[in-house]
């Protein structure tokens, strides 16, 4: 609680933030000749492709429709012709069905849009009844990295009362600066987006809005405070530097002091958390009828020549972005999609930017710190830093022993995979990777148990 700033109460680590690209303004890079659009860019059911080969499409046209409640539309980010619908490598590390579109460089939009500048009056006059539908149509998902469909978050069950909307401008992952730059350059739009979300929830009573920003971004805090001063009930909260403050549960704890119960969503304590970039795109979709076709991506790490923040169309290849930044250095050793703590190492840069890609990280051998695994010395530091109050070392031992039943007692499913334990581990054990295996095994056990119980119930009825 240095300097009296707020932060979350349990665990957490202090990492070197390495925000090399913080000063570089967002550059818009030209749309590529071909884009590759995965039909599954979000959590939930993959969208269903509705275009076929050789079909002409325009910007904002739905090329894959949402299928199921938790799912999102996928829109075309360019105008042109569909070249193929086939499996291609994506930032998930696997091949997935993608729609390949050749850009005709005409940039024709499918539907007309407006360019209303954000202000308090605009939001006040706006009828928000159609806002959630507009968000759903525009294919907006959480742009912080988890890619949860936003329209689902904005339409909680009727018995849930939301009284707090929190915008997440924490960006606690080292290296990444995309959100920080958006907050500096587009503060008005973000705050208007927050006011819009608050208005959606305000039919059930007053709603308070917060914008959480870590104190290492004083310029972002200043710009956002200026923009927020024009609205009632919106407060910018400066937070102490601690990882993983950007986790939903940690942020709620830091700002309003509420604890989300195990296995529950933030709506259980009356909160909704949205990323700042998502808020801006919600404003664009609901007010201006603009589809979500591009996002800001930080290309950084000592492995690229110039660290930059780029505004790119979805479907642009990582390779093109890295080349735009001057290419990789000679000692580049590792490519990561996302931040260094929770991002995913990739085997190739021939993958497209999707809605969830917040950063492209090229690390050098020195930065990547690829230590050999050594035995656990039971120092307990992982327990100290776990923000969810788990025992990562113990969980690791149980998984090694194959005692998957015991994982339930250890509340394994509460793990948010933030990587704090991994970072602090004296033995450099790959704790998070083990935990991911454990989660799969535990879910298998829980599923089998559920099935068995259902069967027993059936037999009882007979």
């Amino acid at each position, binding site marked *: 609680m240095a300097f009296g700033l707020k932060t979350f109460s349990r665990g957490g680590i202090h990492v070197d933030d390495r925000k090399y690209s913080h000063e570089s303004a967002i550059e818009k890079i030209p749309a590529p000749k071909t884009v590759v659009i995965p039909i599954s860019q979000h959590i939930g059911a993959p969208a269903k492709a509705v275009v076929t080969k050789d079909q002409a499409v325009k910007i904002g046209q739905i090329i894959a429709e949402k299928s199921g409640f938790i799912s999102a539309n996928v829109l075309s980010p360019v105008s042109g012709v569909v070249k193929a619908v086939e499996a291609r*490598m994506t930032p998930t*590390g*696997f*091949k997935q069905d993608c729609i390949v579109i050749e850009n005709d460089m005409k940039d024709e939009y499918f539907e007309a849009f407006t360019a209303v500048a954000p202000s308090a009056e605009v939001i006040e006059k706006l009828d928000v009844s159609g806002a959630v539908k507009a968000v759903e149509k525009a294919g907006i998902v959480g742009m912080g990295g988890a890619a949860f469909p936003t329209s689902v978050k904005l339409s909680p069950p009727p018995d849930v009362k939301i009284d707090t909307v929190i915008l997440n401008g924490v960006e606690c992952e080292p290296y990444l600066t995309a959100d920080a730059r958006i907050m500096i350059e587009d503060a008005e739009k973000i705050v208007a987006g927050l006011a819009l979300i608050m208005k959606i929830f305000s039919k059930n009573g007053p709603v308070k809005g917060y914008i959480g920003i870590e104190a290492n971004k004083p310029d972002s805090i200043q710009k956002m405070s200026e923009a927020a001063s024009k609205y009632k009930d919106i407060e910018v909260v400066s937070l102490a530097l601690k990882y993983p403050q950007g986790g939903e549960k940690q942020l709620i704890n830091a700002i309003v002091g509420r604890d989300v119960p195990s296995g529950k969503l933030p709506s259980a304590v009356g909160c909704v958390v949205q990323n700042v970039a998502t808020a801006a795109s919600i404003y664009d979709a609901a007010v201006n009828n603009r589809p979500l076709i591009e996002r800001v991506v930080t290309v950084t790490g000592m492995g690229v020549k110039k660290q930059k923040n780029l505004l790119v169309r979805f479907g642009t290849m990582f390779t093109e972005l890295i080349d735009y930044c001057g290419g990789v250095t000679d000692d580049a050793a590792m490519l990561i999609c996302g931040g260094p703590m929770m991002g995913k190492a990739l*085997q*190739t840069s021939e993958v497209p930017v999707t809605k969830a890609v917040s950063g492209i990280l090229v690390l050098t051998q020195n930065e990547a710190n690829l230590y050999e695994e050594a035995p656990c010395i039971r120092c307990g530091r992982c327990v100290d830093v776990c923000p969810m109050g788990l025992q990562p070392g113990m969980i690791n031992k149980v998984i090694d022993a194959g005692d998957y039943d015991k994982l339930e007692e250890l509340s394994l499913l509460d793990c948010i995979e933030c990587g704090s334990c991994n970072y602090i581990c004296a033995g450099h054990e*790959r704790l998070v990777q*083990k935990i991911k*295996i454990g989660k*799969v095994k535990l879910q298998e056990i829980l599923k089998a148990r559920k099935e068995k119980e259902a069967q027993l119930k059936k037999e009882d009825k007979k």
Partner: protein
Amino acid sequence: MEIIMSVLVMGLIAIVLAVALIISSKKFHVPENPLIEKVASLLPQANCGACGFPGCAGFAKAFVEEPVPGMRCPVASAEVLKAIGEVLGTAIGENKPMRAVLHCNGKHSNVQTVSEYIGVRSCAAANMLYTGDKACMYSCIGYGDCAKVCLFGAITMEDGIAVFDAEKCTGCGLCVKECPRKVISLVQKRISNVRVTCSSHDKGPVVRKNCKVGCIACGKCVKVCPKEAITVAPGSNLARIDDAKCILCGKCVAECDIMHAITADGRVVKAVEIIIKKKQQEKEEKQKAAAMAAGAANNPAASDTKEVKS
């Protein structure tokens, strides 16, 4: 004197406790079928769980008390089954012995390595993260999850793939369940086995680019098989041999001479050598004949003179 007292006291306590134990053991006796223990002692005692019961004792109990048709110990040899049959007084159908084989030949020397993996050395972990450090996303990952789970020491990891010892393998199937890529399957334990050592569903050109010994689904093996045991399922881009129909002639192994994606082991290897030799001879003869014919066509005078001379 003190010694005698203590001996007496301890002796007395011992007698009282012994009596109590005898009474309780008689009173609280749980009758158990003695056959269960007999059967359990005959079983392999590996407690591998391949039968679906918690260990050999669990299987023995179920087998004696409420046998269900089809219930079997997949590991037990014919003699063990016979012995169990004698104990129970019934004949037990013979166990078809099985063994596990790998449908991949993605050794480091055969398949391209495209990245360096530094995470947990486990196939399951690597398979969750990405398509693996080998170029082929269907290949054996080679970190040995199957070897770790094998209770009979039949699997060793060599040059990035699992190698199965046909002698030691009992066909319990634990490795088949464990493999995240599903490149292991059970086949009949015979004098040998012929299988397609590839699991790639990629199209031919991609396979050739990634691997030296992948199946490109050319279909030559399908044509040469006398028993129609080989099929290339539409859309799968992969040949598969039906083990039940395969008569181990080895013709397909000899036919797959470009990619070498069909592998035989045991005695068939010799048969294959013979077939290949024969093919080679035929080819040479054909070439000779062709060369002679060509020579005759090009230089009729020369051939004429030859004939005259002879």
